[in-house]
């Protein structure tokens, strides 16, 4: 059964082994690379059906093992974090105390953990938030050293973070903001920038995706937006800009059931066989609508446990104490 294979063969599921150690001790490879895109896409079409999930998870796990098979045709991970430590820039208080994480193409990861465990800090550090200072460790994104890049370069490289509480920018029109960001992307790709009308044509269909009305575009960025509107706006940005790795920082907080479903539907709609998602959440209900390949538990600035989606259930029933004690 696929389930079993996954548990024994997949390195990230064994918390006692940091991913990079497994890289050297090349492990089992399963000859299943071809059906991968097919299963991925079928999974996204039926996000609410539970059955395809473990299969997808196992394929991802397979992919991660092939990446370490040392045969020369290996795929590098999309994101590889090793021993990342970071402090608050102002107070020098250490928040991240050695985070290890590997995300491959097409995987969905979820990080859960108590308040103050460092989840949000981790996501902000990845996108280069100036409030934090990296003091040690490595982060490689698409084969490049992420920590050397400016925040805008990280974004252009394909890293996207949806903010937990996006800042209001009075006086800047939402569509102008998106237009600027989109053109920055096109410029980076060497494509001609879009004029306002062309851009409008491009963005208009995306509104349906997040279930927003057109007037949403003419409002100032996040100004006077409700909690739900802010989250939808973040996802709209993701839809417009695209990303290889989307970090969704508590995309579910402050959302009612309907809004959560809308947002989750939008995220699922954006998934492709190659892009990946890193979700940060407190609640299992998000994981029921966006199915994770892996769940990581963060505590005191480290990832202390990694497992499949069943971890969320354990968490729900027994709380974080059960996990940190185990």
């Amino acid at each position, binding site marked *: 059964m696929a389930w079993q294979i996954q548990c024994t063969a997949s390195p990230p599921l064994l918390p006692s082994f940091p991913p990079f150690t497994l890289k050297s001790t090349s492990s089992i490879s399963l000859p299943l690379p071809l059906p991968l895109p097919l299963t991925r896409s079928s999974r996204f079409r039926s996000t609410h059906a539970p059955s395809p999930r473990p299969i997808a998870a196992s394929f991802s796990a397979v992919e991660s093992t092939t990446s370490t098979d040392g045969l020369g045709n290996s795929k590098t991970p999309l994101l590889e974090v090793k021993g990342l430590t970071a402090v608050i820039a102002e107070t020098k208080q250490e928040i991240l105390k050695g985070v290890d994480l590997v995300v491959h193409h097409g995987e969905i990861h979820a990080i859960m953990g108590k308040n103050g465990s460092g989840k949000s800090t981790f996501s902000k550090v990845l996108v*280069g938030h100036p409030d934090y200072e990296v003091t040690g460790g490595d982060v490689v994104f698409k084969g490049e050293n992420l920590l050397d890049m400016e925040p*805008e370069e990280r*974004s252009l490289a394909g890293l996207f973070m949806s903010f937990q509480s*996006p*800042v209001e920018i*009075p*006086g800047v029109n939402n569509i102008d903001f998106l237009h600027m960001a989109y053109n*920055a992307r096109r410029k980076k790709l060497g494509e001609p920038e879009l004029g306002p009308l062309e851009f409008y044509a491009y963005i208009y269909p995306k509104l349906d995706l997040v279930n927003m009305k057109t007037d949403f575009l003419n409002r*100032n960025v996040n100004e006077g937006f409700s909690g739900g509107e802010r989250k939808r706006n973040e996802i709209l*940005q993701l839809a417009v800009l695209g990303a290889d790795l989307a970090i969704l920082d508590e995309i579910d907080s402050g959302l009612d059931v309907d809004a959560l479903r809308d947002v989750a539907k939008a995220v699922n709609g954006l998934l492709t066989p190659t892009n990946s998602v890193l979700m940060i959440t407190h609640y299992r209900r998000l994981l029921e609508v966006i199915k994770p390949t892996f769940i990581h538990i963060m505590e005191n600035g480290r990832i202390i446990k990694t497992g499949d989606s069943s971890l969320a259930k354990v968490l729900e029933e027994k709380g974080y104490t059960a996990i940190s004690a185990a």
Partner: protein
Amino acid sequence: MAALTFIHQNLLHSTPKLTTSKPNLKPKRTKTKLSIQTIRESPQASFTDQFVLQLADSLEDSLPSSSSSSLPLQKLRDNSSETLLSTQWPSRKDESFRFTDTSFIKNSDINPISHPPNSLDLLEVSRDTQFEIFNFVDGFLVDSSFSSSNLPDGVYVGSLSKLSSEGILKRVCELLGDFEWGDLFWSVNGLGAPDLMVVYVPEGCRVENPIYLKYIAVEGADKGSKKMPLSNPRVFVLVEKGGEVGIVEEFVGKVGSECYWTNSVLEVVVGEGGKVSHSYLQKQSLSAAHIKWTSVRQEKTSTYELVEVSTGGKLSRHNVHVQQLGSDTVTELTTFHLSVGDQTQDLHSRIVLDHPRGYSQQVHKCIVAHSSGQAVFDGNVKVNRYAQQTDAGQLTRSLLLEPRATVNVKPNLQIIADDVKCSHGAAISDLEDSQLFYFQARGIDLEIAREALVFSFGAEVIDKLPYSFVQKQVKDHVKALLKSRRKGSS
């Protein structure tokens, strides 16, 4: 803070003492013409400022010779002339000019403009607006530029001299120039205004389209020249009980006119339950002097809303005085000043509340984007003894974008009533890091992000302008100014 402003008031109260010496000086004024040189050496020696006397003389000389001036205007001139005799040219020692150096005007060769330019065809054709534009050229109302036929019955917009209604004339006569807070510039206008434009809205009348006043400075000297043609446009707006009108004032200089002085006065009286929405756009040449007074009196339950965007002038000052005459008034002042060059932008505002349940909100924002640019804000809100249950708020935010750029802010609330809700705040900053980061996180580089944020800082005020075509026009203007700055610096 309150104590400081009281000292300021004492200063103003001491003026009657000075006027006693007036009779002796009057003959002197008509006889002697002193050169500027002597005056500069001893301006404080007598109660009368010789420089001001000379200016008053030249203003009188510039007035139209015809004695057709109507009664209210004559009264205004007499009063102003009298006041000028006892007023000194402001110095940095005067509290209200502490941060505003007017010597730039004083050191120029001021020449009051005595007649409108001969060829008016150089006027810009009014742009794509659906509204009629009333043109002031060098302080003279150009009658041919409009017809009042599209206005509702009973509304009068035009020169006082052409006003035929005795009733309106009487009302204007009662109210015009009745103002104790003016300074030298108020009086200079009172004496030098060649005409008075009257906007009259009768009881219960709602004027749909805004009255768009465009003030154009045509006569102007080259940049760096000492010459400074002076114009004194004056407008009086009277809205009777329940009436409503929008006023747009736009100040510009003709292309090629660099150095000139516009000294403008707008008086507004809003009757019970009436509403005046005032948009004020100052886009003068960066070498010009621009002094402006806006005096507003509000009857009970009336509303006055001001949105100002000032970007021009080497020296620009707006004095706003709002006086509450009855209870339950609404006053909103939203202003934005931009200094992209070696400029001083000054806002002196004063809201006086004497009656219960007034509401006043003031937001002032300024950007100084030049190392020798300066912004000044003195915002006074006075909540007097009987102004109980007043809700007054004041907020000022300044953005300094260059080293040595200067802002002097003096927000002050004087509260005597004890049952009020008042708030105020002042912030001086660079751009918000969290906002800059939001742009960067979406792949937008820092320079573009900064530019967008600087613009948005002012756009918050521009968005309050009640007419979209005005908004667009102002946005384009501000964008161009900010862009010119970037080009200039790189």
